[in-house]
């Protein structure tokens, strides 16, 4: 990092100061971690047999957690496919030449982006059954995730389509292509390529958001951990609580870090390829990664 313009390369004195600071800071962090571990040990949380239950097939815990993870991935996968397809359609609709397509699609996108995801899921879960749509927690979760993310993805696709050089479109029209052909053969392939990193990042967000199933009672990873805890509390007291929660949290982090790595390598690959050389200047908007969507006005 000696290339940073913000500071000079540290000299001997600064290096010594940094070393002292590092050692002291390291000691403080180590002390805090030690304190936490000591409290955990004092509460008996570090005993090996408490952790062994996580890996002991006889207890049913690994199977249940695996099942929970599969349920999480199932919701996320269905949601990802639906949201991507619908998002692409909505993006094309929003760029349509016909006002009667453009305006309603715009309203749909803005509406679903502006509402908190949890409210959308609750709407699907609570309201739709009253108008005769059969609903399960799984369907409500998928539907909520799809509705929300298709709107976010539509904006991403739209930004991608608009970022394709104007000459491409004009050249395609000059060759005599129709509007549909221009869109499907020329603009969309380039747009998808360019927006691929953002797209994958948003899909990671979708996976993260599937943990909202915990609140609406879908048996995903977090809910599995919770019900295992309740089950064990009933039979053995609360001795496995902490271990199960840590396990669920770690699984989430591992899966998400893995997916983020995929996103990063995809980004690198698109950046390397000569055809998408311009992809480098597409910045990942912070809000897209945050899973809250952006400004509800579409100006983001």
């Amino acid at each position, binding site marked *: *990092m000696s290339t*940073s*313009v*913000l*500071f*000079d390369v*540290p000299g001997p004195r*600064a290096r010594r100061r*940094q070393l002292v600071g*590092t050692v002291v*800071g*390291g000691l403080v962090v180590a002390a805090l971690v030690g304190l*936490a571990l000591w*409290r*955990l040990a004092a*509460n008996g*949380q570090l005993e090996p047999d408490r952790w062994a239950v996580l890996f002991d097939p006889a207890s049913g815990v690994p199977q249940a957690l695996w099942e929970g993870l599969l349920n999480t991935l199932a919701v996320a996968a269905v949601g990802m496919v639906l949201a991507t397809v619908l998002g692409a359609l909505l993006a094309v609709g929003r760029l349509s030449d016909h006002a009667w397509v453009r305006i309603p699609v715009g309203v749909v996108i803005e509406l679903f982006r*502006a*509402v*908190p*995801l*949890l*409210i959308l899921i*609750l*709407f699907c879960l*609570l*309201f739709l059954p*009253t108008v005769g749509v059969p609903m399960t927690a799984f369907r409500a979760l998928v539907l909520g995730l799809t509705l929300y993310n298709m709107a976010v993805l539509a904006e991403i696709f739209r930004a991608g389509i608009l970022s394709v050089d104007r000459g491409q479109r004009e050249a395609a029209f000059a060759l005599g292509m129709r509007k549909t052909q221009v869109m499907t053969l020329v603009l969309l392939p380039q747009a998808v390529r360019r927006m691929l990193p953002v797209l994958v990042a948003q899909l*990671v967000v979708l996976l*993260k958001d599937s*943990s*909202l199933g*915990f*609140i609406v009672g879908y048996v995903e990873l*977090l809910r599995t951990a919770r019900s295992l805890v309740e089950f064990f509390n009933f039979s053995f007291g609360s001795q496995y*609580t*902490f271990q199960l*929660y*840590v396990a*669920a*949290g770690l699984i*989430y*982090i591992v899966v*998400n*870090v893995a997916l*983020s790595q995929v996103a990063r390598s995809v980004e690198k690959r698109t950046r390397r390829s000569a055809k998408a050389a311009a992809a480098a200047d597409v*910045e990942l*908007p*912070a*809000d897209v*990664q*945050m*899973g*809250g*969507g*952006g*400004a*509800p006005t579409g*100006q*983001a």
Partner: protein
Amino acid sequence: MQFLSDNSDLLWSAFLTTLSLAVVSGLCALVLGTLLAGMRVSPVPPLRGLATFYVEVFRNTPLTVVFFFLAFGIVQIDLQFPSRFLTAVAALSLYTAAFVCEALRSGINSVPPGQAEAARALGLTFGQSLRQVVLPQAFRTVVPPLGNVWIALAKNTSIAAGFAVTDLTAALQRLANANADQLLAVFAAVVAGYLVITLPSAWLIRVVENRVAIVR
């Protein structure tokens, strides 16, 4: 309408809870995120490492899991938040700070290198050049992404409902369970509550953005 006015007390206090949740955690996240961004560009490698680690962990953890840990996990190390509201504030701030840090870091990167070089040439230390030269410019360029983080935060407060904070979403669940025939009105009122926060914010962000934008 009759139904909504009957429950206006609950809705109003729920709205205030949501709003204060968003504002308090927004401020905490802004402070923490700025610190983290400063650490991420600092000359001290362990600080950089620590901040990177923080951001990576919190960006890859679902907010629900963060809530979950603060609500049920830290009891095991004999810590507890004095109230559910503070638990929610802590979870939202810790989570959002990672995104504030990322937004600010991209802002810091977008400040032309000449500015930092000039600051160094004048003999300013790292802290001085960051505080007086780089960050003020960075903040101006990141108004839109920071605004988006704020709006996302306002929407994310709804997750607190799952952890026994009586915000708008919790009010929605309560009213929906009690009044199955009035579902649409309940949903409309609650969504309107969120829009009252997000729409003016979006407008304000655009105004501020136009005000402070640096034309280069």
